[in-house]
């Protein structure tokens, strides 16, 4: 018999993250009869607001109020959870920058198994949980088995499960603050430095010409710029382009960059990792140009061109210019 399922609720300024509702559905895939307990950590009025919101969706909400939890410091939260969770607990958390910080180490402290970035569950047989992950930026998927006799810590990919929006749990909030003991840590939060604002605001553009690794060289960026100019669009990019310092961070689309909602999105030489697609909202019309026919971008694109962008884009630009 599997242990009790818990969902870690990420929240900010008094509002639960979208993942809060997705984790209910994820828990149901592990055990359809699961009564999942929500864990909400924080302090003050914002915490109470989040607890009330979450209690609409979870039958039981454990609240932990401590002034040291005003900002979610994974080091402090790991200490706290290792002290309060039952030893065979199955903890679900979103696979975001906080979950990645918290969870691998928590699995060690709980002596339970860890699975990251899970996109599906295939079911539980005895103590063996079978789940689905992706590797190589989504080019292949894998089935993974976990022995959860000692519990599990599982990071679930945001957006991989539909949210449960029924909000019919009518749950109760249980104040567990008294169980918080010493959570002082050797890592102290200082501040959040906001992303730099660049010369263009790609979040407000209708048409984006976005370049990825397939552009190969800094000198080739102008191939995309020329197309964008001909189309009346703006150039954006994926993460490797910013890492290489070929374009500014403010032009990066993705979970670690900007969230954009254009009408039309040209993905040139972009493989289409979930981190990149996570920054693409509003169901745009997606055109993918990639020489790798197996690139995941073709699964989400409306139109695909299987060519090297360095061959195709100059021809396209010329044709767009001719048509004007």
């Amino acid at each position, binding site marked *: 018999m599997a242990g009790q399922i818990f969902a870690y609720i990420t929240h900010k300024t008094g509002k639960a993250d979208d993942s809060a509702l997705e984790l209910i559905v994820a828990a149901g895939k592990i055990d359809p009869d699961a009564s999942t307990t929500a864990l909400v950590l924080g302090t003050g009025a914002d915490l109470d607001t989040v607890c009330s919101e979450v209690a609409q969706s979870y039958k039981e909400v454990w609240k932990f109020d401590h002034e040291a939890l005003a900002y979610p410091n*994974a*080091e402090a939260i*790991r200490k706290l959870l290792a002290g309060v969770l039952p030893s065979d607990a199955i903890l679900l958390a979103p696979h975001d*920058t906080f979950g*990645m*910080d*918290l*969870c*691998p*180490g*928590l699995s*060690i402290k709980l002596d339970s*198994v*860890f*699975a*990251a*970035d899970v996109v599906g569950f295939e079911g539980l047989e005895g103590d063996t949980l*079978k789940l689905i992950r992706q*590797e*190589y*930026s989504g*080019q*292949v*998927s*894998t*089935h*993974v*088995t*976990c*022995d959860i006799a*000692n519990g599990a810590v599982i990071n679930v990919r945001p957006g991989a499960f539909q949210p449960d929006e029924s909000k019919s749990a009518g749950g109760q909030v249980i104040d567990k603050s008294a169980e918080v003991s010493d959570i002082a840590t*050797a*890592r102290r939060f200082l501040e*959040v*430095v*906001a992303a730099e604002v660049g010369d263009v605001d790609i979040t407000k553009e209708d*048409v984006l010409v976005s370049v990825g690794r397939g552009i190969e060289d800094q000198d080739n960026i102008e191939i995309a710029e020329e197309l964008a100019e001909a*189309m*009346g669009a703006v150039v954006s990019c994926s*993460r*490797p382009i910013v890492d290489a310092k070929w374009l500014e961070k403010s032009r*990066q689309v993705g*979970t670690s*960059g*900007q969230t954009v909602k254009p*009408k*039309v999105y040209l993905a040139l030489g972009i493989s289409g990792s979930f981190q990149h697609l996570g920054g693409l909202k509003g169901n745009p*019309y*997606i055109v*993918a140009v990639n020489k790798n026919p197996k690139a995941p971008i*073709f699964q*989400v*694109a409306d*139109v*695909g061109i*299987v*060519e090297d962008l360095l061959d195709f884009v100059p021809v*396209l630009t010329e044709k*767009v210019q001719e*048509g004007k």
Partner: protein
Amino acid sequence: MEILVCVKRVPDTAENEIEVAGDGSDIERDDLVYSVNEWDNYAVEEAIQIVDNVGGSVTIVSVGDEDAEEVVRREMAMGANDGILLSDDAFEGSDGKGVATLLKAAAEKGAYDLILTGAQADDGAGQVGGMLAAMLDLPYASIVNKIEVLDEKKLKVGREIEGGNQEMNEIDLPCVLSIQTGINEPRYVGIRGIRKVASAEIPVWGASDLGIAPEAIGDAGARVKRVDYFVPEYGEGAEILEGSLEEMSEKLIELLKAKGGIK
């Protein structure tokens, strides 16, 4: 500062299309080009820059077979002082915790102030750094995109968080950090650099050198196991255009005009 950097040899996704082998037991590995995991390369560069500034030494460690030695050597050529290869038949099939167990044992044979890993790898789960820190009972920060040495006892580190924002923390040494790409510009390693370390000795440590019971690691100790690889059935996916470059361009322009993509 004594720094240990954990690196891994992986198929290079910039150079390869990854395909599932016939029976799904593995990916097609015959023609794969391997290299150091990209995140790890940034970690090595960061370690070398820190030592250039404040003194100390950089040691590279990797868990793998004899092919991983080449990766350790390549990273040493960037300017690291020492390299260690953790290799033993008993290590095969280790899960993330198994790898972290090996690295912990290796780390404890030295006296390191700072241990760096890559934040993730294309064939991994972004787990080893956090697990290693927890096993060593050291403070940890993940997805680090800035390191500033404040003094001998602490660092100021930036973590990349959602929306391109940066979370600044102060962290006590010794500690473990997982490094994000983009934190620096890794130096180029030429043939000459490789030649310089061609004869450097890279000790190979097995289970007995590390004092680890073989049943605790490898396939025997793994509680998390990859069963198979597969390519899921997706919906229809994109409509793939055919024809010459000119023909495809003309078709695409028509489609773009209909969607308001050309102003």
